[in-house]
């Protein structure tokens, strides 16, 4: 039994009928041919499937597509505008922030979402005083805020400077 939904994915609107069991991850990959969100664990543990859902980063493997009718989705490939890589994507390349690359689209999207959260003044677990108005985006803050994205190759040593570089470079929106 199909549920009819509309998804605006990477700028294009799609009307599709999905089995209620379909996650947003499977809808993107199996119905819309958008392959940048990766199925790593499929249980919300690895972050390889991270997308921006109505502007915030989420694990697309745990969101049922039927429950997100009308949603606007940005994936790693949708961050690219007119063939120009997003500053975060450029920074990952410049800092060699990947080895096998499987987790990279999720890392990049998560980092973009994470910086928006930090800019909005959201605290994190390592923020000393959650009632403070501002918190500097230290390396410790970036590590904590990116803990939902695992890299089995262990490229963290370059992922952190890549995100730091993009954050310091500005112009991320």
């Amino acid at each position, binding site marked *: 039994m199909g549920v009819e939904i509309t998804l605006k994915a990477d700028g294009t609107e799609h009307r599709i009928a999905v089995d209620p*069991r379909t996650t947003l991850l499977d809808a993107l990959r199996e119905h819309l041919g958008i392959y940048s969100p990766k199925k790593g664990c499929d249980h919300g543990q690895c972050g390889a499937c991270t997308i921006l859902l109505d502007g915030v980063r*989420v*694990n697309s493997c745990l969101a049922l597509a039927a429950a997100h009718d009308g949603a606007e989705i940005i994936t790693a490939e949708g961050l690219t505008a007119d063939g120009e890589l997003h500053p975060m994507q450029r920074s990952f390349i410049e800092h060699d922030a990947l080895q096998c690359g499987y987790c990279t689209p999720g890392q990049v999207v998560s980092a973009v*979402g994470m910086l928006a959260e930090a800019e909005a003044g959201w605290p994190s677990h390592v923020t000393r005083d959650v009632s403070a108005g501002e918190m500097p985006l230290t390396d410790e803050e970036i590590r904590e*805020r*990116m*803990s*939902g994205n695992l890299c089995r190759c262990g490229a963290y040593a370059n992922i952190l400077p890549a995100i730091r570089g993009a954050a310091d470079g500005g112009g991320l929106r």
Partner: protein
Amino acid sequence: MKPFRYDRAEDISGAVATLAREPAGVFLAGGTNLVDLMKLDVVKPDVLVDVRRLTSAEIEDLPDGGLRIGAAVTNSELAADRRIRSRYPALSQALLSGASGQLRNLATTGGNLLQRTRCAYFYDTTTPCNKREPGSGCSALEGYNKEHAILGASRHCVATHPSDMAVAMTALDAMVRIHGPRGQRQIPITELYRLPGQEPQHDTNLEHAELITGVDLPPSAFSPNSRYRKVRERASYAFALVSVAAALEVRDGVVHDVRLALGGVAHRPWRAEKAEDALRGKPAVQQSFRAAAAAELAGAAPLRDNAYKVPLARNVMIRTLLELSGER
């Protein structure tokens, strides 16, 4: 995943009425735990009634100075709210210590309260588990039980409640707002949860088709002096082995009032009333905190692998109270 029907009601009453007719149905909010449990065939509903867009996603000021949190407020939004951060910092800290940024953006307040235990045997459908399959037995009792309960467990179930948020809410005297087939009611969060007893399949005292619509935080003069401290096996993105939520008011060196709750030690967030009673009127010094923690843990019954939780809970309680009293 077993096939199911997806249903989206017009409003809360419609959702409740729909689910009341579906004995094997469940409500869906953010889905971060439920969808995972369905993928693993641990939970196999016939119908999902989606309530995420029906309950409030707002945090409202109450006339008495408290706050009303809509059930659909995400864990991220709740943790970042300025009023929560300044008036109930333990709640913000608890939320921020749970899950990951991506999960907190999907997970809701109502759903967080109703997440299921992370006991490995509950998740493993090849092993007996009284919570998953009543009457099948408890594999953790004689099995791998490092993460399990030291307080309030039964021989039928030694699982712990996994929420960080609920531990802070337990210390903060939160009231849970419920809309059910027979109308609306509110209960203290301490009455939402159950001990496992002989029926560990029931995590809460909610009846079928009762929906959590929100949580009220009462005003408190001393909740700004509250803190959540969590001990886990990784620096981030792991469930608590033991956690403590506490709020403390000291006047002239004496404990005037205190709220204390423990996570990771029982089937429900554990309000430490014995410790609270032992502390009121006592000097706000380490010796009093140690005696209070000992009073609370006197009834602890550790299993083969989790005896470490007794001194850990004691020390985390003492440390958290010391910090709140201004000692380091």
